[in-house]
């Protein structure tokens, strides 16, 4: 195997953990290509991502997506120093396609392969276009259809901690389910965001999950879910609310419900995230995941971070949603830090913890 360029490695990253097939190419911290093929349209009629449909789409999209990324970056496979692939967390069958393709790519080219944590890759994308390192005292708030997490990052290559996460639905899932109840279509995020602009968020008050004292505790004696979220109760509350209006023969105030729902989500996400940051000495926050496109969430995050003296960074939306460039970006960081590749014997792990930034190679 030829020695890898460790100062400005050229890395091809592959992402297939949910419904986006992504191939990205970076050189060090410079983005060269970010090609994404989404199967979102095929999930619309189901009102949510169907894993088997996503997996079938990944299989057909992978080679064309990679071809396009190589063309966009103007590089040949031969030029690549290493390959990186999302090995988890995510949908098991979907991960499998990207992992098999990445392994085949490694076998066919003889290039080293890194098996990478999807959540940490959402943070790694923040390094693109920057010449330095990530800030100290860094946190990341990840909100998407698949996840809702607050992370503390001491070192992006080997020290990431999960401070809090959703214990049931992801925020994006709550948007999808609520949009369906309100008849607003899929994906729910943009649909609710749009309608909510004409509604009165104060007209109805929906519950903020896991905010009672027994879950929160105090800073000194934290409760069991101080920084965690729950959105399943919120979805039920929306359904009850709609039923009540219908039962009384009244017109359902869709815009008000959408606005109140969105306010409840943004409020509980941002208040808990900022609390986690304050209590853990986090001074800089990176926002990631597709829900970063949500206008109210962004506005409230900016406002509350500013009030708490926390600086906020929001990457361009194309890098916030799932993509291969973030996987390549994290792969490049691992190489520059001298981390060993993962080899080709690893198994994808649909519940890969953030403490595992990349999978260690087997001794074989």
């Amino acid at each position, binding site marked *: 195997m030829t020695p890898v360029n460790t100062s400005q490695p050229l890395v091809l990253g592959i992402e297939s953990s949910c419904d986006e097939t992504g191939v990205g190419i970076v050189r060090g911290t410079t983005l060269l290509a970010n090609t994404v093929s989404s199967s979102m349209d095929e999930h619309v009629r189901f009102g949510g991502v169907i894993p088997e449909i996503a997996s079938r789409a990944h299989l057909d999209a992978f080679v064309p997506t990679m071809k396009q990324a190589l063309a966009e970056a103007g590089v040949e496979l031969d030029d690549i120093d290493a390959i990186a692939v999302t090995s988890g967390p995510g949908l098991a069958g979907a991960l499998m396609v990207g992992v*098999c393709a990445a392994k085949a790519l490694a076998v066919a080219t003889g290039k080293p392969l890194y098996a990478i944590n999807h959540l940490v890759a959402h943070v790694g994308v923040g390094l693109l276009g920057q010449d330095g390192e990530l800030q100290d005292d860094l946190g990341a708030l990840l909100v998407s259809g698949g996840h809702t997490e607050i992370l503390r990052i001491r070192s992006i290559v080997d020290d990431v901690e999960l401070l809090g996460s959703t214990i049931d639905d992801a925020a994006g899932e709550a948007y999808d389910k609520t949009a369906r109840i309100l008849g607003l279509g899929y994906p729910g995020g943009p649909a609710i965001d749009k309608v909510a602009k004409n509604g009165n968020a104060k007209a109805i008050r929906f519950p903020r999950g896991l905010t009672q004292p027994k879950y929160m505790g105090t800073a000194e004696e934290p409760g069991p879910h101080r920084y965690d979220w729950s959105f399943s109760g919120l979805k039920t509350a929306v359904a009850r609310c709609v039923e009540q209006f219908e039962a009384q023969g009244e017109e359902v105030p869709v815009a008000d419900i959408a606005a109140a729902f969105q306010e409840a989500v943004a409020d509980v996400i941002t208040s808990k995230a900022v609390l986690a940051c304050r209590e853990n000495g986090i001074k800089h926050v990176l926002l990631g995941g597709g829900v970063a496109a949500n206008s109210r969430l962004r506005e409230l995050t900016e406002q509350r971070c500013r009030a708490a003296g926390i600086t906020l960074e929001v990457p361009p939306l194309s890098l916030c949603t799932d993509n291969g460039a973030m996987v390549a970006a994290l792969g490049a960081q691992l190489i520059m830090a001298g981390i060993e590749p993962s080899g080709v014997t690893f198994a994808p792990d649909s519940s890969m913890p953030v403490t595992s930034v990349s999978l260690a190679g087997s001794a074989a």
Partner: protein
Amino acid sequence: MLILAIDTSAVASAALLSDDAMESVVESFATEDTRSHAEVLAPGIQKLLGDAGVTGADIDAVVTGVGPGPFTGLRSGIATARTLAFVWGKPLHGLMSLDAIALEVAESTSAAPEFLVVTDARRKEVYWARYTLTDGQLPRLADGPHVGFATELPDLPAFGAGAGLYSSVLRADEDFSTRQPDAVSLGQLALARLSAGESLLDSTPLYLRESDAQVPGPRKRAL
């Protein structure tokens, strides 16, 4: 001609085949396991190439079984084959996976002029196809592949692990009662057909079943 054949419709298997080698087989590997394809396939192929002292440049074509088989496992092999063929710049061909067992039947003492190949489709169903055989010829697919209940199959001698599983309702051949599609036989068949100038399938998977997803009905209104 040197080809790399891959089949993951049941177990994970790969083989290097050449018309210059004994029985055409240069190197091969197969697992017993039907659930760890993503782990074992790439290392298996890597070792296969290494042991044979072969690189992608030496290979003339990649052949993949296209099922039917359990979806996730099946995709592992097809994703691998598509990527290898793309990187090496070599032609990619597909073969129906049940054909692998049909070739073995044709070459066995149990060969019959008309027979079924049956594999396990899980959920109490089987994948199956009907073949015809003329002396000295390759077996020909006459009907299928299908997915369904073992009780609904034609009354013919049945070969393969699916027949073994439902031997109470099928005329299962004992020697084949645990037989799964394998890359060696698949590759041998591909070599024979390619050298006879026949064209093979493309690499489109034969799922035979839709995803289980249900389109949600309209929400029930209160009252």
